[in-house]
């Protein structure tokens, strides 16, 4: 039974030299979006195959289960990817799967998510941890509504790097004009979502052209990077720039003399001597030591799992956040957020849910405001239950003081999940957009009489301003909307005032 696979592996797998993994960077997490028709399974299979992540016995199982191969002598990659019995039986992908491959420059974690519309929730799950999204388009069909939908969700979940894979380019005779048209159209759309790092690549996943290996012979007009080259050079998100954040997971007291606060740094950096504030209590202390198993360290940065020792006896418990004195997060009882509804019951107005963010769990009431119409990208007023797969804007109201950053500033302290108190299931994933005044709206903060300025800026300039400490410190007094230049022009032409 294993004979066909051995034939295949003998001809396909070039095991020439050892993979010398350097890995001087963190793994890149990415998500692939597209349906079976776009060739998503083939693309991922090709990536795993050409980077030698598929071993011979796995290929043999594959060949045994598929019973046949395509005309290139490759097994049916979809079987490699669809791990669950139900998926194999029904020939569909129903859940997020994680794949691993590496090159000699870097390793990659791929969240492989199903493409059907009803699986928005799976895509949101996969996108939550991703730094980059690969969006697949069939060169024959061009951009579909589904591609726009996926790009919208990816942008909403905070992904700022897109790769458009214009697949099956061989089936349009490697026509440069077709590739140019699709990639131009996509670029325009991605820019309107606030995503500016866009790479479009013409490829044939089936033939392995421009995936791992370049295709100079068939596409002499394309001199850009292959998919893997693009992934190798992509940036991994870091939240080291903002203020220090340490959500306290547990307090460690191995004896009378030692009291440490254990957690993973969720933003910024810290060193002994720094002044910190414990939120929500507001108590101030100084850092005396950073303890890890390896040695006492003189600094820790975002991502590090550490134990922090303070210079005085203070009341700190699990769920508290230790933050830098300068550049503190927002605290309050009311916040604006966007969320994705994940379960059949939806998100009900007024119902009290558990909200978990970092290591903190607290009660919250959720009030839907509007819902994103994925087909058009427009927000429609919506105050009733947000059904499964819906993306909504909501107001959150807490009984106890809550601590957040805006998701745009910090993907860790700005993110949360909602847990249904009846089923204990995870029912929503959410992102904080802003703090809301007690009466509502930042614009009513001074009785509607305060002076405000509306600016229209190029996106790169706005991002630099928003990354500044001055802006970060007063983020909760501001409102930011991204739009195309055309939309901005309309807004300003309709606006009153001397602007």
């Amino acid at each position, binding site marked *: 039974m294993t004979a066909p696979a051995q034939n295949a592996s003998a001809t396909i797998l070039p095991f020439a030299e050892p993979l010398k*993994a350097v890995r001087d960077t963190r793994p890149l997490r990415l998500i692939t979006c597209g349906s079976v028709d776009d060739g998503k399974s083939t693309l991922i299979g090709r990536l795993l195959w050409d980077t030698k992540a598929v071993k011979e016995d796995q290929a043999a199982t594959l060949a045994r289960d598929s019973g046949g191969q395509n005309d290139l002598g490759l097994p049916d990659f979809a079987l490699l990817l669809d791990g669950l019995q139900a998926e194999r039986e029904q020939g569909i992908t129903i859940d997020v799967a994680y794949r691993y491959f590496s090159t000699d420059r870097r390793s990659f974690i791929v969240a492989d998510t199903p493409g059907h519309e009803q699986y928005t929730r799976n895509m949101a799950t996969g996108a939550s941890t991703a730094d980059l999204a690969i969006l697949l388009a069939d060169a024959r069909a061009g951009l579909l509504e589904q591609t726009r939908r996926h790009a919208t969700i990816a942008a909403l979940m905070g992904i700022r790097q897109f790769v458009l894979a214009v697949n099956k380019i061989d089936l349009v005779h490697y026509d440069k004009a077709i590739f140019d048209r699709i990639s131009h159209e996509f670029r325009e759309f991605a820019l309107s979502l606030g995503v500016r790092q866009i790479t479009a690549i013409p490829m044939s996943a089936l033939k392995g052209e421009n995936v791992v290996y370049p295709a100079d012979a068939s596409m002499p007009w394309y001199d850009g990077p292959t998919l893997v080259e693009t992934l190798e050079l992509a940036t991994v998100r870091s939240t080291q720039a903002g203020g220090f954040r340490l959500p306290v997971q*547990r307090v460690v007291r191995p004896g009378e003399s030692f009291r440490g606060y254990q957690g993973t740094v969720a933003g910024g950096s810290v060193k002994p001597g720094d002044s910190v504030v414990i939120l929500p209590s507001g108590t101030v202390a100084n850092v005396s030591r950073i303890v890890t198993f*390896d040695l006492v360290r003189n600094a820790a940065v975002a991502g590090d799992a550490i134990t922090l020792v303070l210079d005085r006896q203070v009341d700190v418990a699990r769920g508290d956040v230790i933050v830098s004195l300068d550049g503190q997060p927002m605290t309050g009882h009311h916040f604006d957020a966007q969320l994705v509804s994940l379960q059949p019951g939806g998100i009900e107005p007024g119902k009290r849910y558990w909200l978990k963010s970092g290591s903190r769990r607290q009660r919250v009431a959720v009030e839907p405001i509007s819902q994103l119409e994925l087909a058009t990208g427009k927000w429609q007023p919506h105050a009733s239950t947000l059904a499964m797969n819906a993306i909504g804007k909501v107001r959150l109201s807490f009984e106890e003081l809550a601590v957040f950053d805006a998701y745009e500033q910090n993907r860790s302290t700005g993110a949360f999940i909602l847990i249904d108190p009846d089923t*204990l299931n995870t029912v929503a994933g959410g992102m904080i957009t802003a703090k809301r005044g007690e009466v509502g709206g930042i614009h009513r903060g001074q009785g509607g009489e305060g002076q405000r300025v509306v600016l229209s800026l190029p996106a790169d300039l706005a991002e630099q301003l928003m990354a500044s400490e001055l802006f970060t410190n007063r983020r909760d007094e501001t409102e930011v909307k991204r739009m195309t230049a055309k939309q901005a022009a309309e807004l300003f032409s309709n606006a009153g005032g001397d602007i």
Partner: protein
Amino acid sequence: MPLSVQETEVKNPPVSRPPLDPHLKALENEAIHIFREVAAEFEKPVMLYSIGKDSSVLLHLARKAFYPGRVPFPLLHVDTTWKFKEMIEFRDQIAEKYDLDLVVHTNPRGAEEGITPFSHGSALYTDIMKTEALRQALDAGGYDAAFGGARRDEEASRAKERIYSFRTPDHKWDPRNQRPELWNVYNGMVRKGESVRAFPLSNWTEVDIWRYIQAEDIPLVPLYYAAERPYVERDGMMILAEDPRLELLPGETVQQGMIRFRTLGCFPLTGAIRSTASNLEEVIAELEIATVSERQGRAIDRDQSGSMEKKKREGYF
């Protein structure tokens, strides 16, 4: 039962090492985060300890996560009584050296009903001596969370498993109905009797495990390194021939050769590979040009396609 309320200081304080590369550091940070989160949210966690390389890495990460405190939960070893002799010796040494609470459980049906891998076939034997034994031990301990060393790159059904993998009171896994898992925010809410299996190594690959063992100088059972050992060829596998309970079948002879193991389990079900890699550097070099996956030597994965998923649904790790 030791609890984290009043912890004592660790024995064998750590030694200073060169910093990890950013790739391994990121994986380590993620695993430590998961350990701390589970230990804080659950009432009675336990760590499944199978003595293999993944368990050794898991234990090392647990010691790092809770330092300078002691590991605040016991280790559970499900002993089928058919493990390699060197595994059991290693287990007892490690428990002593690191001052760990070790719980060992064997399903009494094994001895009572004479269930062995030879007499009952690998599927039934595994079901009773591993899956059922694990359920017994978890029920007896009243554990609401159990750490395991499973990795998503090991097997197709594991690629879809969550880091917090929810189990019903009878330990069933429902792959079609898993809780969504976003960012690194884990939902640790369960009802009485329900539990989670938590997998801090979910995002590690086999190469990562070996490189981490090297970087952190983690001790392993010597069977992972090649040596001259006696073996018998059976069903296309090389089975270690040193346990007197291994009876030779007609036509079988004991041979000698340089062999080692890529995974360790019950000796009658675990095949060796021919190898000259007698130390860590050589094992890693060999691994980087390997063309077969590590589970290829495992008889229990080969029973049928999708067999791991089936076992997991029934409560296997």
